[in-house]
């Protein structure tokens, strides 16, 4: 089975195959011998790649895989060839609309823009107070505010839509 794995701006195609119980992973021209065992209650894995051992904690939710290993935490997107094919069909319909989400639950302290405002990348749009810190939420890219959904003093849930931009 082929997997398309994305980490940040990098993507790799990794093909896993099991023959007679042995698992191999092909990454480009390199083939690794892989031994992966689920630990006890699940959620943790013992991964041995070409004899080298790694202690892995993994959370997999559909195509998102979060790994903790080698002292790092990785958030990866990983689809198998079947999923990739399905997405290729479903794709091609993402519009230019974007939303500003509350990165955490908190209280809206300030809304710095109004509908119709042009915003620049990095500009502070909303200030959210959470855990005693004031956290400015900034525009990921330049655009125009099409809708303001939150107001000052409002308590918002994590992930709540605060603004819509185009």
């Amino acid at each position, binding site marked *: *089975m*082929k*997997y398309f*794995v994305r*980490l*940040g701006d*990098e993507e*790799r195609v*990794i*093909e*896993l195959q*099991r023959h*007679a*119980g042995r*698992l191999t*992973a092909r*990454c480009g021209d390199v083939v*690794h011998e*892989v031994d*992966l065992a*689920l630990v006890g209650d699940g*959620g*943790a*894995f013992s*991964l041995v*790649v070409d004899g080298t051992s*790694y*202690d*892995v*904690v*993994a959370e*997999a939710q559909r195509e998102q*895989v979060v*790994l*903790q*290993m*080698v*002292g*790092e*935490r*990785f958030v*990866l997107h*990983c689809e*198998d*060839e*079947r999923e990739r*094919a399905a997405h290729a069909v479903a794709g091609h319909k993402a519009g230019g609309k974007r939303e500003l989400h509350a*990165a*955490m*639950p*908190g209280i809206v*302290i300030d809304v710095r823009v109004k509908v119709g405002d042009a915003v620049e990348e990095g500009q502070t749009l909303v*200030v959210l*107070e*959470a*855990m*005693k*810190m*004031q*956290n400015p939420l900034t525009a990921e890219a330049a655009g125009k505010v099409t809708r303001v959904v939150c107001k000052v003093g409002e308590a918002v849930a994590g992930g709540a839509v605060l603004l819509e931009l185009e």
Partner: protein
Amino acid sequence: MSDPSKPKLFRRILVANRGEIALRVIRTAQEMGIETVAVYSDADRTALHVRRADQAVALGGNKPSESYLDIQKVIDAARRTGCDALHPGYGFLSENEDLAEACKQAGVEFLGPPPHAITVMGDKVEARKCAMQAGVPLVPGLQEDVDAAHLVAAAKQVGYPVMLKAAAGGGGKGIRIVREERQLIEAFELARAEARSSFGDDRVYLEKFVTRPRHVEIQVMADKHGNCVSYGERECSVQRRHQKLVEESPCVALTPELRAAMSKAACDLAKSVGYVGAGTVEFLWSEGRFYFMEMNTRLQVEHPITEMRYGVDLVREQIRVGAGLPVSPVPEPRGHAIEVRVNAEDPDKYFPSLGTVSRINLPGGPGVRLDSAMFRGMEVTPFYDSMLAKLVVHGADREQAIARCLRALRELRIVGVTTSLSVAKRTLESAEFVAGDYDTGILDRIEKRAAPRDRELAMLAAAATRFLLAERAGATVEAAAGKGDQPPRWALLGRTERLRRTMP
């Protein structure tokens, strides 16, 4: 476990705090045979400090102002449960002179300095005046409260970059650095707003921003008989957003002479205000000189690195001096200690990360200490600060301590929220930290991404994880058919089979 024939120093201590520091105090009190009373907000009903204390009193509410910051409720709880002492921890009311005063009125020993010392040191402007009088060097700047009208002129006079600090602040909260005049007004408004919401006092003062500074602080302990001792320094320059992330002791930049001078300055300052209990005098170190920043009139988050080096229990000492005993002799320090704070936060954006802690793997073995009130199933809520744990290690020397800390960081796993662990790891691995020649700007220079080799590995591991999970989903069907021992032939199942045929 205590000798029943010995009189106890206190009968019962109210712990006016939550989280790891409340647990920290409870642990020592238990070891001294002193009972503890926990107080808690609604959100904290099942928190570990509630479960581990001998008694628990509900304060009600979720917001700090309705619970841990409500002096009347806290004092009432102490009275009702017959407490004869109160430990404020850090944060919340720990540096509130009204609480200290209320304790006095209620006949409850406040395990901290007298109200006057809190008042003076709690006001940055007053504290600087006091330090000046005690002969402690200061950073150039304005010691008065600044208002918007004089702000631009004042900043110009001191010279950019400048710092804006909440007069009532502490713990890095309410501090802003301003590099250019055009950022000044917005930063001032934000600093004021944070100061108001965090401390209920929006006064802000301004000082010069020292170049390549190190944050070095001295731990002192004073008793009621006029003695004050120093437990040496802690280096706390690894900070982001003025929040400390990694602390170590000793500081490689100090000579024995400088250490002695700083210790003396810290003790002189403490004595000049009639200090009692544990306190920390924070200095900026720059190019071999030191400048007074502020005095924190409470136990510091990073106190365990001092405890590990000196083999002392600072909470025990707080309780002892609070009961009127003289400070114990200070043992010779041994080795090197490092603390890493583990925060629930997105390490890229320093955003708090909320959620449920669903799995914890704790580090162990030689020289490792973990202070935490975290437990599996715990909700990380927006009500309180984001620190989940403090990982503290001790080694015979700095090299061993760094290696041990990295080893323990690899062992520590927390699932359910994102943490700052990887930033700490990359800091400890950085050439700058290893060399010891760093300053408070170090985190801006730390590599943000994992090493390429580790990234490649993670991509392989992600694919292998998904493969195994798919296999196991298939294996379940196989096992039901009595073929569980065979390598699962999930490729033969359903539509997967169809896709497989198209593969080489």
